């Protein structure tokens, strides 16, 4: 394999700017697939991904391109996840590339994720060249966008291909640009093996399939390999490259190539993304830079709606975990919800995806508790605990102080909405850092925000206050001391553990009040009156009452049609069965979820 004819690259873009569509067109134009074989978007494999229009797991494909210079090139297109939750995975995928295509929407121009992703690519020393997409839109302004790219990002954009990925316009030009502008990979096949793991999937026949970029050396069947961070060793069974939607075995992977290897590895835990693979018999001196252990940022409790389905939920989580090393879970028990799991996620999107997959692919009906972040609780005895479940908060007398995670956030917004967005950040306890004007009508706002203020409904609020124009990106900054309290909810004087959560002391009253109001609407009237109270440290701060049922009578029973009346009674009874019993009170499953959306309208 002629190393100089290989191009390893990825496409970076803001969501909906056309990344996956361009990827499809590139694969189509290289002729390895007929149009008939193309699914709507080849790279987004999971049904969920196609529906949401985002890429969740990195996908990779090897294609052959006959360039105008008469040579045949191998392109490895590495598709990267497109969401801030998966930032680390994105960074490892980028590290497997030598260059990146930056896709910018000709009408919308640069957005928050455009910047975040392009800076990430530049940080990895990738050669980035821009393409302007959607030029056939009536609102397209390619010249303005080109200038914007040059002014804001500082990369050459005047000769950027003007394309419409959707309609196949300008794709040839992109292919030629890949050959010209993206450098061939470096490294030597004769050096000791040094390969970067950028993804892995679990296959029930082959075990873990490790996606890797060979930086140095070579690997083939029989090579004894070692994962340098996890320490796991194995013997390679198969190596190969990525066809469209299939794995194609080959004899050997050498420096500069992108491919996969299998080695009868049973668990994705052993093949952490970012780890370096080397040869046990001829190891490299040091691992590739940039490995880090991925930590969960957001936690919530997940319970089967039907308690008998607990083993099913456990099995389903086990299976998902095989493919998703960033998912964490451990069993927990709630008085209100019974047996379930405390699960850790990279972010709220990750949480939602796992939840939807559990419900769709495993047909589970779930009750999820309010997502929370990891708080650091410093106790008076000098101990520090990392708190993921509010119910485990020690007694206030044992707490010295608490810390919460804070993120650096960048919000891109048109100037007319700067006011409302700043107000939103203020309400969410944001600390203002700066405003940078991208052009006369658009600005980049920088804020430090507590993570627990943005995991609920920050996206929704941002969208509604900017009429959809604001875009948002963030990264974890660190932990800061904060005045935090546990808010408890009492229903008919019984504390409902699954409804407790940690909140900043200043917003406790407001949150408590809104929770009580919401729950009042969710809990059906019973034969008796039900007080709903919010409490902090045993002190009641808000109260609502579900009035006792006054009237519940059947209509006239006509012509002896008892069956029909019984069906109505049965329906009433069935409804109760789907509820959770707390003391004497039946709480619908939806009540536990509804408190997650305490929007501010």
């Amino acid at each position, binding site marked *: 394999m002629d190393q100089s004819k290989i191009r390893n690259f990825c496409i970076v873009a803001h969501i909906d700017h056309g990344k996956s569509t361009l990827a499809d067109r590139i694969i189509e134009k290289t002729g390895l697939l007929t149009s008939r074989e193309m699914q709507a978007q080849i790279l987004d494999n999971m049904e969920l991904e196609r529906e949401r229009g985002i890429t969740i797991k990195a996908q990779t494909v090897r294609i052959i391109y006959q360039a105008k210079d008469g040579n045949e090139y191998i392109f490895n297109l590495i598709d990267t996840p497109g969401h801030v939750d998966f930032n680390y995975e994105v960074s490892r995928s980028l590290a497997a590339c030598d260059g990146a295509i930056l896709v910018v929407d000709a009408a919308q121009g640069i957005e928050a994720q455009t910047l975040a992703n392009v800076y990430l690519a530049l940080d990895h020393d990738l050669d980035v060249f821009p393409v302007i997409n959607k030029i056939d839109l009536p609102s397209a302004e390619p010249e303005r966008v080109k200038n914007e790219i040059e002014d804001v990002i500082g990369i050459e954009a005047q000769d950027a291909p003007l394309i419409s990925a959707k309609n196949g316009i300008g794709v040839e030009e992109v292919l030629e640009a890949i050959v010209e502008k993206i450098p061939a990979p470096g490294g030597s096949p004769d050096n000791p093996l040094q390969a970067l793991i950028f993804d892995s999937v679990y296959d029930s026949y082959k075990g873990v399939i490790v996606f890797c970029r060979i930086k140095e050396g070579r690997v083939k069947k029989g090579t004894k390999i070692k994962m340098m961070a996890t320490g796991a060793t194995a013997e390679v069974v198969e190596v190969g490259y990525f066809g469209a939607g299939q794995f194609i075995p080959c004899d050997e992977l050498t420096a500069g190539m992108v491919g996969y290897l299998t080695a009868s590895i049973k668990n994705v835990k052993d093949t952490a993304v970012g780890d370096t693979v080397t040869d046990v018999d001829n190891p490299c001196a040091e691992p590739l830079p940039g490995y880090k252990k991925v930590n969960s940022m957001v936690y919530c409790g997940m319970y089967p709606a039907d308690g008998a389905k607990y083993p099913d939920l456990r099995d389903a989580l086990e299976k998902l975990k095989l493919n998703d090393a960033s998912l964490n879970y451990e069993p927990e028990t709630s008085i209100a919800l019974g047996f379930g799991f405390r699960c850790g996620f990279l972010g709220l999107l990750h949480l939602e995806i796992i939840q939807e997959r559990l419900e769709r692919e495993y047909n589970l009906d779930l009750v999820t508790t309010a997502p929370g972040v990891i708080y650091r609780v410093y106790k008076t005895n000098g101990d520090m605990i990392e708190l993921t479940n509010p119910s485990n908060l020690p007694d206030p007398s044992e707490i010295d102080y608490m810390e919460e995670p804070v993120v650096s956030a960048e919000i891109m917004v048109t100037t007319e909405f700067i006011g409302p967005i700043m107000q939103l950040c203020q309400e969410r306890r944001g600390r203002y850092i700066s405003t940078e004007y991208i052009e006369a009508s658009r600005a980049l706002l920088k804020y430090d925000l507590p993570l627990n203020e943005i995991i609920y409904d920050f996206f929704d609020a941002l969208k509604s206050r900017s009429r959809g124009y604001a875009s948002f990106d963030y990264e974890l900054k660190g932990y800061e001391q904060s005045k935090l309290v546990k808010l408890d909810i009492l229903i008919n004087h019984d504390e409902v553990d699954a409804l407790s959560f940690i909140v900043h002391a200043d917003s406790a009253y407001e949150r408590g009040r809104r929770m009580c109001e919401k729950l009042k609407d969710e809990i059906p009237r019973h034969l008796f009156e039900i007080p709903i109270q919010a409490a902090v440290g045993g002190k009641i701060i808000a109260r609502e009452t579900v009035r006792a*049922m006054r009237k519940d*009578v059947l209509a006239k029973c006509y*012509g002896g*049609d008892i*069956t029909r009346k019984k069906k109505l*009674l*049965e329906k*009433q009874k069935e409804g*109760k069965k789907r509820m959770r019993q707390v003391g004497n009170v039946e709480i619908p499953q939806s009540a536990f979820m509804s408190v997650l959306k305490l929007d501010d309208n």
Partner: protein
Amino acid sequence: MRNLSIYIHIPFCVRKCLYCDFLSGPASVGEVGNYVNLLLREIKEQSVFYGDHRVVSIFFGGGTPSLLPARETGRILEGVRDGFFVAEDAEITIECNPGTVTAQKLRDYITSGINRLSIGLQSTDDEELARIGRIHSYSDFLETYTAAREAGFRNINIDLMAGLPGQGMASYTKTLERVAALSPEHISAYSLILEEGTTLYVNQDAYTFPDEEEDREMYELTGRYLAEAGFHRYEISNYAKEGQECRHNKVYWRRGDYAGFGLGASSMVQNVRWKNPEAHMAYADCVEKMGHGGGGRALGSGSAPCIARPQDKSFAEMLRRTGRCEVQELTAEEQMEEFMFLGLRLTEGVDLKAFLRNFGKAAEDIYGRQIRSFLEQGFLERAGQRLRLTSRGIDVSNAVFAAFLF
């Protein structure tokens, strides 16, 4: 001999009321004639099963049964008498709407043996009547009522409704006053319930309904006012003068045997429940099958007619074979459920000794938790060997009934 009640469904009306979700609708003269012929065939074919039964009540319900010409109701009753043993003192009721009967028709009813009239008045306020789509006025009603008395009816029920759109305490009180002053033998007073699929349900936002509190006040007022006027409540929504309780109605709550004839009619005989088809074609089909040996006669190879009796295992089989719907042989548990939620509708409540007799187990052993909790909360009360709803229990009777389902 066992007692049997007969329900006869007449699915015709002039126009559907806005709150009505019963099986009914307008029809042409030809359709009416055909329907009565089918009904007569069904009655004839079914009579073979009830050789050892005595008919103690017959009820013509609808729709508006009084839309039938009197000679048609006469023909139906003749058909019943031809096939069944009808007791001398059987209660025979027909429902009628004001304005659908003439003095002559009422006299013809008396002649054919009908001895009880149930008049659908609902309200004495003409605006309230118009709002729910009734086709008559209060004065139409008065005419019908007077004519019924003159024709010789000694047992009349008047249907009322509380909780109508735009109804207030004042107008409801007036309705009660006027009706009580007429001194009928029986009054039914139901709370309006918005049933899904009715016009009123669909357009409910366009109306103002009395709130829950007012609705319950109306209910309490009904009991209080009618008691003073000499009516006692014997069922959640039914009031009668001494000895004038509706026998047919009580059969439903006491789980007596009843056979329903006609489109969509319900039956329960010896713990088997079933319904006739609700679509006309399916009903006609069903009657056809009854007439071709499917009725249970001449089954098997023998020439001797072999008739499944209601207590036989093959009875339910026969019902299914002839296209009856929702045929259900009630299990012991289902019988217990019904015993409770139907019996509790009566103010006398359920007889705990009868429960033990019927099921071989004490109600307290089966429903101990529910009974204890409802007694504690004051929704049920004990009266000797009986268990009954308190007035608070009546208000939320659905919730109480639902708790007795397994």
